[in-house]
């Protein structure tokens, strides 16, 4: 899998799919069957989170599920965090290298090897082959970020030696063989996690979800017949592919490059890591080349190629060229057809394609930064389709041992980033960004379940990045630990603020502060490993705010006034950054004074 580039497996000729006719299935039947697939994918996502036992799966929705062809092409997916589903084709290729010719009705396969397709080791895949008339016709599969997979530290691991320290590896294993559960494996699996209650419940939820997907596929085959459903799958994928290619084709051919930096590898603090992205458009194909990015880390701060780097770009490319909000009128289905025009390149031995046996666990920030850098490159050619610099999420795992239950408690908070300004629109304030789309856990649920008191959750008080369309304002979140706790974190942006563009200012960097129980105040790096948080201590996450877009002197003065009213900015900022004069008593824009000030500023 780690050959350095993806040549997406596909059964039909590219030209035929892009320009050819509309196949053999009646378009009406195709729309009906396709719609049923979309509904099945969404239903699978609902099932996992509703059946699951860990807040990560239930609330955060760090899950995925869908139906796949026998060759591993995605037919449909759940409407959940995108890193999960785009990766499943790679998982299937990964486990099939061992199971080819040995897949039987009633099997349930588990897999999490990050060097054989897994998104990262905590994201366990459960896959069920779907049979019809004695022959396998598809896969039903689900993934969930399990709370703990038995690595050297609870939850995720940053500062670790290799992939063996990071997690237990379950590679192409049959949890059920022809309908019979392998009790030894099940016991081994649950004995090797710190949070067996969560892991057991979540894994059963995935099995139930795969069964549900299988049921839906069987219903379609029953109703329309295999001779219709199977070609319909191919044409459904081709349809999405045509839509994507049509949009890419509108962009002139060319190559655009940009660079960015990651804070550090989680161990060597003063050594930022380079990210280089070159995006090439050639006809209806797009290539994302990460060559020139940093050599792989000797810690866990690396990104599995097949399961994370590649699907990360599937998400970014669709978000830019086939933006769901822009194409809201056309429900273009998310499936493998959208992946086919996309090729991703990252040389083996770099952070986006680490060499075995490096650890490659905490990769969300890596993928987001790669996507952000690709947007920076594309700003040169499609400024109306991108946003200015966008910050990543922060992931913080908090864990401790529960003496009463004789089991660890462990929770991971996902603290959202914010988008940069956009052509015609401000950046989105505090929201999950780019390749992540999770939900926060309600404080009234979290504080009831864990020895944590969430003490603050609101927008951070620092002003947004100035611009004609200002950057989004990120959040500040504080958690107090009521018992001795360890924290592992994956975050980005303490050094490099999200970039402004076309005259917009840069955003605000991330700041992580620990307030010790004894009153000590300490700034922490973005990535720490098993960091002690004693009872009574507090962690504060001030998330990075997005960059500004366009010249602030062009910003609508009424929008500046609203920002003042909303206490995002001060009177001084209004005049200094935006050239807008506001009467503080009447709280109105002084139009003449503003025009004059702006004229002076422009010189």
């Amino acid at each position, binding site marked *: 899998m780690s050959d350095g580039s993806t040549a997406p497996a596909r059964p039909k000729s590219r030209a035929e799919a892009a320009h050819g006719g509309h196949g053999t299935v009646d378009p009406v039947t195709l729309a009906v069957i396709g719609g049923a697939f979309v509904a099945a994918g969404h239903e699978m996502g609902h099932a996992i989170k509703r059946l699951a036992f860990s807040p990560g799966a239930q609330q955060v929705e760090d899950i995925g599920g869908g139906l796949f062809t026998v060759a591993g092409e995605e037919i449909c997916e759940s409407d959940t965090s995108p890193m999960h589903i785009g990766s499943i084709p790679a998982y299937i290729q990964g486990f099939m290298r061992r199971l080819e010719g040995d897949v039987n009705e009633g099997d349930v396969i588990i897999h999490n090897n990050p060097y054989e397709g897994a998104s990262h080791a905590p994201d366990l895949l459960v896959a069920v082959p779907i049979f019809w008339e004695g022959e396998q016709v598809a896969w039903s599969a689900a993934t969930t970020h399990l709370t703990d997979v038995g690595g050297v530290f609870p939850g995720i691991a940053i500062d670790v030696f290799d992939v063996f320290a990071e997690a237990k590896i379950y590679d192409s294993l049959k949890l059920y063989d022809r309908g019979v559960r392998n009790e030894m494996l099940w016991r081994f699996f649950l004995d090797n996690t710190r949070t067996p209650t969560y892991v057991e419940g979540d894994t059963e939820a995935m099995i139930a979800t795969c069964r549900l997907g299988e049921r839906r596929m069987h219903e379609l085959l029953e109703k329309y017949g295999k001779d219709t459903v199977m070609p319909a799958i191919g044409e459904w994928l081709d349809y999405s592919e045509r839509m994507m290619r049509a949009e890419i084709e509108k962009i002139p051919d060319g190559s655009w490059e940009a660079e960015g930096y990651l804070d550090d590898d989680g161990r060597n603090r003063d050594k930022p890591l380079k990210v280089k992205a070159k995006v090439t458009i050639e006809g209806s194909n797009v290539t994302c080349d990460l060559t020139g990015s940093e050599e792989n880390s000797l810690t866990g701060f690396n990104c599995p190629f097949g399961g994370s780097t590649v699907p990360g770009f599937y998400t970014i490319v669709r978000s830019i060229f086939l933006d769901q909000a822009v194409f809201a009128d056309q429900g273009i289905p998310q499936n493998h057809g959208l992946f086919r025009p996309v090729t991703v390149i990252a040389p083996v031995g770099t952070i986006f394609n680490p060499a075995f046996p490096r650890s490659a666990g905490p990769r969300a920030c890596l993928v987001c930064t790669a996507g952000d850098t690709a947007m920076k490159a594309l700003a040169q050619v499609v400024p109306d389709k991108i946003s200015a610099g966008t910050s990543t999420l922060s992931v913080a795992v908090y864990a401790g041992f529960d003496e009463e239950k004789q089991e660890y408690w462990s929770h991971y908070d996902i603290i959202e980033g914010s988008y940069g300004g956009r052509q015609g629109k401000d950046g989105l304030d*505090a929201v999950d960004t780019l390749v992540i789309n999770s939900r926060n856990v309600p404080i*009234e649920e979290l504080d009831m379940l864990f020895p944590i008191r969430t003490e*603050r959750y609101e927008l951070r008080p620092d002003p947004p990045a100035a611009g004609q369309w200002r950057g989004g304002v990120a959040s500040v979140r504080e958690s107090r630990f009521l018992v001795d706790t360890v924290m592992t974190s994956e975050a980005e942006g303490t050094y490099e603020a999200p970039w402004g563009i076309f005259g917009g200012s840069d955003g605000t960097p991330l700041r992580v502060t620990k307030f010790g129980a004894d009153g000590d105040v300490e700034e922490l790096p973005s990535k720490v490993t098993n960091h002690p948080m004693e009872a009574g201590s507090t962690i504060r996450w001030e998330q990075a705010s997005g960059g500004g877009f366009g010249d602030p002197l062009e910003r609508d003065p009424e929008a500046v006034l609203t920002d003042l009213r909303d206490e995002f900015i001060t009177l001084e900022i209004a005049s200094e950054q935006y050239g807008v004069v506001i009467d503080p008593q009447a709280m109105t824009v002084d139009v003449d004074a503003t025009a004059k000030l702006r004229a002076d500023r422009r010189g």
Partner: protein
Amino acid sequence: MNRVGADVGGTFTDLVYWNAEQKRIEVHKLPSSPSNPAEALLAGLREICEMHDVEVSDIDQLLHGTTVGTNIVLEKNGSEVGFITTEGYRDVLYIGRHRRPFTFSIQQDLPWREPSLASRANRRVVPEKIDAPSGDVLVPLDEEKVRQTVRELKADGVDAITVGFLFAFLNSDHEKRAAEIVREEFPEAYLSVSHEVVPLHREYERFSTACLNAYIGPKTGRYLDNLREALATDAPELDIGLMTSSGGVVSVPDASAKPVSLLMSGPVAGIIGGVWIGRQTGHPNVITLDVGGTSADIGVAPGGELRMRRLYDTAIGGYDVMLPMVDMDAIGAGGGSIARVDSGGLLQVGPSSAGAIPGPASYGKGGVEATATDAQVVLGRLRPQGLLDGRMSIDVEAAEKAFDDHIVGRVGDRDRDDAAMAALKILTHNMVRAIELNSVRKGFDPRDFSLVAFGGAGPLWAAEIARELSIPSVVVPGQPGVTSALGLLAADLKYEYSRTVMVDVPSANPADLQAVFAELEEQARESLAQAGVDESEMILQRHADCRYVGQAYELLVPAPSGEFDDAAIAQLEESFHDAHEREYFWRFGSEKPVQIVHLRVYGIGLMPDLELNQIEAGGETPPDDAVIERAPVAFEVGGVTERLDTAFYDGSKLLAGNVVTGPAIIDHQTATTVLPPDLRAEVDQYGNVIIDCTEAQNV
């Protein structure tokens, strides 16, 4: 007892008068008055009384379904809301659950921030904090700060205030005290207090519900006050009841205090009307299909019981509302749904709609795109002079042109009839899928149900949909256009009280739960008594939201009545296991303990039974004058679109016992029933048309 049901929709205001003693029903329909919906309602009430020699003062009860609140939300013209919340959490309402509605989009907006129900300037924090899980006071409420904040908000010109504190579901003392201060300082402000609006955990959803309540509160309150005042002289004794999203009816004061509970008022009345029609015609298991111009509302009621939506799946206009709502689905499929061939060569119909303006091409109001209604016109199913007794004409050529311009030649080698048929099939399949999602996918077999179809366009599609889903019969009410107004009269009074208990079954103390149920039942009983319901007409129903310990989402299951003992808990537990298996096809079994999250009590006040007027009886053959004309209409026969000689009937002239065989079209003035070839329909004693869909399966 004289009762009137009044359903105020966007286009029409429908009224149904019912006299219980005389068993007499009268109906009336008039155009709505969108700028002041009360006008048409009052005019309609006077007119229906005049037409049938009843004094307005003789009306005892007016049941009302209103979209006033819903329209405020959709048009985003609500109040300026000040939101007083816990220090440190100023923007919880704004951040929401931090998830983007579109996963794959850079250019999207976030609907709950467009605009935020309370702007940041109006979101104010005060020091206070309740500890979790104990519910003890961690930081005392700074009352002076509350007072000062209320004064500032008043000076800034807000007209409504929400008080929402973290963990108020555990301990509401701080919210109560802050509310008192608001009343002292700013008595004229509309006040919404989070634990009163929804006493359940999940801060964002609770705050959003309470703020939405404040957002629509002042205007909805004014509307209801105006209505009451306007009727005060004509009918001083008149009791006004409003339909809620959960299918109950509440008094004007209760509705004014919690207008957010009325948001689904209209569509829910339709479902109740459909269920009632089903019961009248001997079809207890019903799927209701209410199709209008832009959307289709679908409800599934096994055994005539309304199902409630899961509490966290409820949002309106992008704003989260954590309140009980009848489980219904609204999809963008209606007469105005636009058919388009997209750049990928796929024919799509809806969700975009031509709406009322410009409307379908055939309505001649400026529409040029091919809509679902135009498809019906092309196929010959809607007569040029057919709608509203000829008050609205149909331009057949415009419909044909719309299809020629936009569809024909772009979906294979289909001719115009084929293209129109394809558009209809796609819209039909969208509705079929929505019904499937709400029936088959929840463990209910459509073969055990009947489809009750109403609204302007429901009966056009019903037979095709029923065949597709193997639903054995379709019921088209005699007057399909007033089903929602009928539903208002068919509904019982209903109050709902709930409390978060969050207790694991193994350690649950039945006496504690009994005490909570008793308290909730007492509240429900009091409300019913206040509404004038006699003790003998009261029913108290218990429910519990349960989940497996460790899960995050609950399922609502009925709880046994009587003394709540160990056996009752065991019964509740078993009901939950069953419900879970029906919902997800998965049962975790007895090794996983069950948790009871919320207890609920529904207080129901039974209303007198409604009965439809019987129509004149006739033989199997419809009277000659019932046939308006015969014309060629396109149907799909054996997979091929063909024009068949088809009879058009005047629905009002059909007699009880008449049998109509397809292909046929029945005109009901405000709606049209399409009866495909090989199907057979019978008119019952009330004028309902029952289509038997079991005979022919040659789709």
